[in-house]
Structure formats: structure tokens, C-alpha cells
């Protein structure tokens, strides 16, 4: 999973949403239910709650729109882009927009709720039998008033259950007429209209007057789509006309002829060649529930995942029995579930920590005691026996004061331990206290402070929760917990590929994740499970734009990320903007 730059998220758990308008494709109750279920997907795995508002400003404002719909990201007609949403924040942030040039369904074709009739508003059942004939869509057969209807069971002849299908002859959506039906013909700007029209609107929505004269009464509403309404095109949702003529040939069904994209279309008059009126044919449509659940993931702070089965994967695919993928759960819980330290965590990783070694005379690089393996311990059992190497109990004694950090042009690694900066080079390290004016301490020997480590350290980090120190050198790593050490272990055990020859930087991300850098890639390590997360590696410059891709030290210091190359650093703020490029020597070492 991926979160947005700076881990954007809501600062409150009671998130509000408001549905600003509805698609003509679905009954409002079906839409309301789809959105409610989409929010439940996330509230089921977090402490978040979602409350619907009916007026005012909500955190998540939901709307349907077509093409240019008021932000900088226009939709593109049928198919292609389905929807988009903004990460949490004020204004447009957090809002979700759905492309109303799509055919919105629940993923398996038209969802047609009935009105009136004798089926209590049940959904149409397609196909159904009427008069011995099978119907796959609403029909006006059998009715003199031309109102489309359907059976709500598979056999009307047997069950007699029916209702009327959405139609502008029954009701309108939105507008200012409280759902009144269209009145045909009606007058608009002096012209007479016999059907719904998009005239007078830039957004492409079909509307009608609900009195005989719009110019006079100004009463209107939007026309619902039906399962025989065409989508997109230029026929304002008129149904297909079969047969229709196209390039001199007659068609009795929808065709993809004439199009390079394979989409099915039809003429809405007897001759496309003469009238040029057309629209796309209704298909399975897109599940509003699935797309909404994905978009709400964005609205809560999740970016796209590269796990194909995850909900946050950018492409749409229909799944019948949806359940949230582990990757999505981890992502949303990373943002919203307070971290709870697992029971006995402190004892899990370090055999040595279970014993309380008596202080001994320090013998650098010579193990003095060995811990007894504990049967309860399950981690780190596949490598050389962990050793318990007591380090000096007092601070490390300064060595050669002539070794001048200010003359080092390239450190092996730079890291932050206990808030202080540590600079490592060729068996020595320097500490620069977080207190701004404190002088750089004289160089000290790595072997004295951390006897198990080699002279060259490629990377290091302190786990902020457990205060354990992780050191990387070549393809090995060591973990220090106070005086106790575990390692060396192979970095392959963490899940890094064998092509990684060294880890060049480590960046704490959240409480239990650390990004490990090597070459132009980085991986995310779950410190708790000691495994690399799925979906990695990623390219450094895709996520961290504007920094050298050959940085050899990466670390987090005072809330900012530093990428070092030679004597220079690139500093990046929490919004991942490079806000300073400077010298390690002057700005960090204060030489």
C-alpha cells in the first residue's frame, strides 16, 4: 500500500460525507446504499465512523459530473477514467467525483428499481417471460400509455408481479420540482420539446420542464436513465432504433463497426447516415459500490497500491463477493489504528534481553557470554547463535582527536540515535548532540561502543519504539538492544533480493515501518515482522522527486529527510518538497 505524501489523513475519527447529486442511472436509494456500504468497508477495519450530512460542508463531498466538472481534472466520456478523489484536507480535499458518462450499476448490468405496480418497489428481474415471450429489458408491450414496465420475477405470466421502470413520464430527479414528472411538449426559449433535452446546459445532463412552459414557470427536473437509454454519444439518451442504417448497411443490434475501440453503439433513428444520431449501448456497467470504496480509500489517505488484488489498485475489475485485501487493511490501519505494542515484544527478538548479564571487563570483539536459547523465542533462530556482548557501561573513550570530521568528504553513513546525529567513517564515529550549540564530540571507536560491528557501516537506524539499533554493512545486518546484539544476519532474511549488495540509507516511516534504500530503489521494512512489505521495491525518484538517485546516506532528522551525496545534502520536508540543498560540513557538523 501507499499513502499520500506526508501521510495525509483526517485528524478526527468521525468523518462526515454528503451526497450532492445523483446519477440518472440508479435510483437514489440504490446509490445511498452503495455509498454507505463503501464507507462500511473502511469502518469495519478502523475506528473511523462515517456520518451522512444533508446540508452544509462535509469532509467528503460526493458528486457525479461529466467531462469538465469543476476541477482541474476533466473526465473523458464513457470508460477510461471512472472517478477520482482527493486526499484528506480542507476545501476540495477529501472530495470524491464520479464520471456520469459511465453506466453506473452494481457491476452486473442495469439495476432497475420499480415504481408503483404491485411489487413494492422490487428490482426488475431480467430476463422475464410475458405472454410467452422473453424480455431482457423493460418494455412498453401490453401498455397503451407507453410506460415501460418489467416483471420482478422470472415469469410474469405465472406470478403477475410487476412495476414500472424509471421514466421521465413517472418522475424527475433533482431540479426544483420535487420529483414531478415531465410534461411534454414543453416550451424552452421559445422552442417546443417533445422529449428530454440537454439544450441550455453545459454538463450534458438531460432535463425537462415539469410544466408546459419552462420560460414562464421555470420548473424543471432531470430525466432518469433507463435500461434502454443510450449512453454518451449525441442522442441525449434516446433508445436505440432497430434496425438502423450505417454506411449503407442495416443493423438489428448494437455494433462496434466504425469504431477502433470495440465499443458497442447504435443509431437512435432509422438512419445514422442521414441523422448522425447515436449512443453507446448499455452494458454490464461499473459497480458504484466498488468504485466508491476505492475512491473513499483515497479520501481517507490511501494512494494507489501495486497489488493487483487490492482495492486500491488503480484499475477497475468486478468481483462478485468483495472483501478487503490485506494490503488495503494494512494501509488504512497504518493511518488510523493506534499502534499497540504486542505483548512481550521486548522479549521476542532478543534472547540476550532475557538475561541480565553481569558487567564484565570490556573485551572488544570478543564474546564474553552467550545467552541460552529460550524455547519461547521464535525469531532469529535460523542464523548464528545470538550473542550477548556486553559493551562498556560507561561512555566510549575518545580516541585520536586529530581525526577531524570536518575533513571527511563522504561519510559511510549518517544516522540519528536518541535524537543526536551520528557520523560513521572507517571504524570511527562522531556524535553531534541535538542541542544546537553543542560541539561535535571527538571521534570514538565503533568497536568499543558496538563491538560486533565491522569498521564500515553502510546504514543504521534506531527503531523509535523499541530503541533498538539496526546496523547494515554489505549484505549483513546487526541489531543492538542496549548491550545485547543479534547478528550478523543476511539482509536476504528480511526479504531483500540477493542483487542488493548494501543498504545505503534507512528512513523511519511511522512507528513500525522503515524504508531501506539501495541503488535507485527502496523497500519498506516492517520492523515488527522483520519482513519487507509487498509491493516493493519502488523507484526512489518516483516517490522522492528532486533528490539524487545515487544518494549514499538517507536519514530522518528533526522531521525532515536528508539525502546525502558526497559533501552535499538535499533536505526534503514532510510534503516531500526539497526545501534546502546544503553542505554536510557546515550545516550538520557545524564546522
Amino acid at each position, binding site marked *: 500500500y501507499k499513502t499520500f*505524501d506526508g501521510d495525509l489523513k483526517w485528524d478526527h475519527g468521525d468523518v462526515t460525507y454528503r451526497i450532492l447529486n445523483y446519477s440518472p442511472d440508479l435510483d437514489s436509494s440504490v446509490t445511498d446504499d452503495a455509498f454507505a456500504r463503501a464507507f462500511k468497508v473502511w469502518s469495519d477495519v478502523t475506528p473511523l465512523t462515517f456520518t451522512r450530512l444533508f446540508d452544509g460542508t462535509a469532509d467528503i463531498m460526493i458528486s457525479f459530473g461529466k467531462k469538465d466538472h469543476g476541477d482541474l481534472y476533466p473526465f473523458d466520456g464513457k470508460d477510461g477514467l471512472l472517478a477520482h478523489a482527493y486526499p484528506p484536507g480542507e476545501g476540495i480535499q477529501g472530495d470524491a467525483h464520479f464520471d456520469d458518462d459511465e453506466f453506473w450499476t452494481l457491476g452486473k448490468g442495469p439495476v432497475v428499481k420499480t415504481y408503483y405496480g404491485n411489487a413494492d418497489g422490487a428490482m426488475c428481474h431480467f430476463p422475464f417471460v410475458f405472454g410467452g415471450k422473453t424480455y431482457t429489458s423493460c418494455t412498453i408491450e401490453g401498455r397503451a400509455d407507453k410506460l415501460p414496465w418489467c416483471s420482478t420475477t422470472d415469469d410474469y405470466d405465472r406470478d403477475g408481479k410487476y412495476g414500472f421502470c424509471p421514466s421521465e413520464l413517472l418522475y424527475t430527479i433533482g431540479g426544483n420540482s420535487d420529483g414531478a414528472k415531465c410534461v411534454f411538449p414543453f416550451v424552452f426559449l421559445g422552442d417546443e420539446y417533445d422529449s428530454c433535452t440537454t439544450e441550455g446546459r453545459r454538463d450534458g445532463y438531460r432535463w425537462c420542464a415539469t410544466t408546459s412552459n419552462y420560460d414562464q414557470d421555470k420548473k424543471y427536473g432531470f430525466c432518469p436513465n433507463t435500461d434502454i437509454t443510450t449512453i*454518451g454519444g*449525441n442522442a441525449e439518451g434516446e433508445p436505440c432504433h432497430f434496425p438502423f442504417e450505417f454506411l449503407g448497411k442495416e443493423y438489428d443490434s448494437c455494433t462496434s463497426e466504425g469504431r477502433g475501440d470495440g465499443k458497442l453503439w447504435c443509431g437512435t433513428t432509422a438512419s445514422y447516415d442521414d441523422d448522425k444520431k447515436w449512443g453507446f449501448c448499455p452494458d454490464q456497467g461499473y459497480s458504484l459500490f466498488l468504485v466508491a470504496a476505492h475512491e473513499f480509500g483515497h479520501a481517507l489517505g490511501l494512494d494507489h497500491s501495486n497489488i493487483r488484488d487490492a482495492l486500491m489498485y488503480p484499475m*477497475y475489475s468486478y468481483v462478485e463477493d468483495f472483501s478487503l485485501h490485506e494490503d488495503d487493511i494494512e494501509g488504512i490501519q497504518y493511518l488510523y489504528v493506534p499502534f499497540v505494542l504486542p505483548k512481550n515484544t521486548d522479549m521476542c527478538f532478543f534472547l540476550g534481553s532475557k538475561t541480565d548479564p553481569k558487567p564484565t571487563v570490556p573485551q572488544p570483539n570478543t564474546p564474553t557470554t552467550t545467552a541460552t536459547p529460550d524455547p519461547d523465542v521464535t525469531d532469529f533462530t535460523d542464523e548464528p547463535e545470538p550473542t550477548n556482548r556486553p559493551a562498556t557501561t560507561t561512555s566510549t573513550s575518545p580516541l585520536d582527536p586529530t581525526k577531524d570530521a570536518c575533513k571527511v568528504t563522504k561519510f559511510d553513513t549518517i544516522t540519528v540515535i536518541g535524537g543526536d546525529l551520528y557520523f560513521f567513517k572507517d571504524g570511527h564515529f562522531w556524535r553531534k548532540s541535538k542541542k544546537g550549540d553543542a560541539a561535535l564530540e571527538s571521534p570514538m571507536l565503533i568497536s568499543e561502543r558496538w563491538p560486533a560491528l565491522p569498521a564500515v557501516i553502510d546504514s543504521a537506524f534506531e527503531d523509535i519504539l523499541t530503541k533498538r539499533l539496526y546496523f547494515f554493512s554489505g549484505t549483513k545486518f546487526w541489531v543492538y538492544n542496549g548491550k545485547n546484539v543479534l547478528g550478523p544476519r543476511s539482509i536476504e532474511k528480511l526479504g531483500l533480493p540477493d542483487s542488493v549488495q548494501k543498504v545505503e540509507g534507512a528512513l523511519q516511516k511511522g512507528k513500525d515501518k522503515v524504508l531501506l534504500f539501495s541503488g535507485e530503489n527502496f523497500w519498506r521494512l516492517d520492523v515488527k515482522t522483520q519482513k519487507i512489505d509487498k509491493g516493493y521495491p519502488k523507484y526512489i525518484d518516483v516517490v522522492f522527486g528532486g533528490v539524487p538517485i545515487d544518494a549514499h546516506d538517507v536519514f530522518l532528522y528533526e522531521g525532515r529527510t536528508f539525502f546525502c551525496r558526497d559533501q552535499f545534502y538535499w533536505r526534503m520536508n514532510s510534503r516531500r518538497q526539497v526545501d534546502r540543498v546544503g553542505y554536510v560540513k557546515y550545516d550538520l557538523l557545524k564546522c
Partner: protein
Amino acid sequence: WSVPLKSVFVTFPGDVIKNMSDTDLAESYLKKFGYMDTFQRSGFQSLASTSKALKRMQRQLGLDETGQLDMQTLEAMKQPRCGVPDVAN
């Protein structure tokens, strides 16, 4: 009788999606979803090419990283999807 049917593509009035060449489609896709912008904003890449952008896109979408506009990549670009860019700008 064995002459293959010759498809005639027409421009449908009001159609938002025009018939695009594969290359145009790829370029538009890579730009729209952030894969191309990455190159423009950073001065450190030496291989600032469509091929590398394609590789990144292929990695993100779990495709074979060929760096080529192959069939599977082209098909992926034609799939319905979310409009949020894959690579943050």
C-alpha cells in the same frame, strides 16, 4: 470470398474519445498518470526516456517490465481505471 473485411472508422459527432494511435495513447497515459512528469521535474536521471517511463508504469501495474509498448501494456492502458495519478506530482 477470402478478402478480409475492411473496417472503416468514422468520427462520431460528440465522441470524447477519438481514435488515437497506440503511441499517442501511451504518451497521453504516461503523462496523465505521472510517469512522464517524473522525468521533467528531476535533473538526475540519465535515462529520461519513454522506455523508462513504461518500465515504471509496468512495475506499478504488476506487468512484465519490458520498457516496450507491448500488447499487455497497451491493453492495460485501455482498461477502465481511477483518475488519480499513480505517481504523485
